[in-house]
């Protein structure tokens, strides 16, 4: 039985093992099968967008891949241009024409992006590091405090 490194068990353990193995399966509740079938029916009735991506219609899968790729490409492109500080100008010339109807909104977005780029350029990386370290320390403090309170609220009776 089990590991070959296990020393021989007393005879009563073998007897107990035998009796345990001989226990018949417990009868499942009568409600189990109807519950499962109802859950399957509910699952089948879900609209496609509430299913896993693999179960989406092919057209929706292709479209979602295109949108995702576009977003990823746009983000990469934006990251490359933010560092140079010419994002607003480049976007302004490249995108305002086809998106003329969104021009007023675009003005706000471009201003915000420009402001973010300015902040990124002006603030030292040391400051960013400090901010990051601060948030990391706060996060770890929360975990530590939570753990300590958990231990106090539910004290271990022995180790």
């Amino acid at each position: 039985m089990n590991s070959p490194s296990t020393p021989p068990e007393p005879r009563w353990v073998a007897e107990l093992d035998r009796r345990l193995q001989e226990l018949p399966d417990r009868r499942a509740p009568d409600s189990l099968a109807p519950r499962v079938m109802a859950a399957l029916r509910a699952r089948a009735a879900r609209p496609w967008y509430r299913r896993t991506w693999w179960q989406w219609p092919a057209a929706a899968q292709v479209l979602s891949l295109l949108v995702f790729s576009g977003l990823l490409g746009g983000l990469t492109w934006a990251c490359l241009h933010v560092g140079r500080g010419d994002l607003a100008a480049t976007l302004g010339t490249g995108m305002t024409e086809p998106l003329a109807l969104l021009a007023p909104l675009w003005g706000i977005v471009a201003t915000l992006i420009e402001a973010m780029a300015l902040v990124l350029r002006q603030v030292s990386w040391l400051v960013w590091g400090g901010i990051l370290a601060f948030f990391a320390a706060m996060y770890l403090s929360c975990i530590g405090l939570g753990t300590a309170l958990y231990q106090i609220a539910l004290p271990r009776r022995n180790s």
Partner: protein
Amino acid sequence: MTDPLQFEAFMRSYQDMVFSTAWRLLGSETEAEDIAQEVFLKAYEHFDELQTSPTAGGWLKTVARNLSLNHLTRYRNRWKFFSEYDKHDESGEGGFVETLSAPDSHDATLDQADQREILEAALEKLPPAQRVPLVLYHFENLSYEDIAARLRVSLGKVKTDIHRGREALRRRLRLNPEAAPA
């Protein structure tokens, strides 16, 4: 496309085994039913392969075991579950055995069905820290090492817990502890 009627027949032929696996680990009918439902919902996704597979039963048992163990670690106080005992339990004497009803003085005449009932009841009343490794060893045929790895506890603790669980069952069944090794 899966035929619901075929799947229902498949489910009915395995539901007792799946439910028992979950119930023995969880010690709760309600939770075991939830886990069994989850197992069959997963099985439905793989029904095309499972319905013709000779190892479908093993697959279902493994999924039931894994989901039950995940459930135990997710929804129960894990530190308490795996690390704590009450004083009786720590001493290895008394403990939950005393919480069981006193053994019938006519134990010797108990028939097999009664013995099974007693054993099931005793198993159900074991503390989870003892019942889970004991079930994994005796019903799931896992080694001590595998159990320790699966429960993420030390090998020594697994052996101790299984020993205590067995002792509790032995006392309940009145098996002779002096019997020589098998």
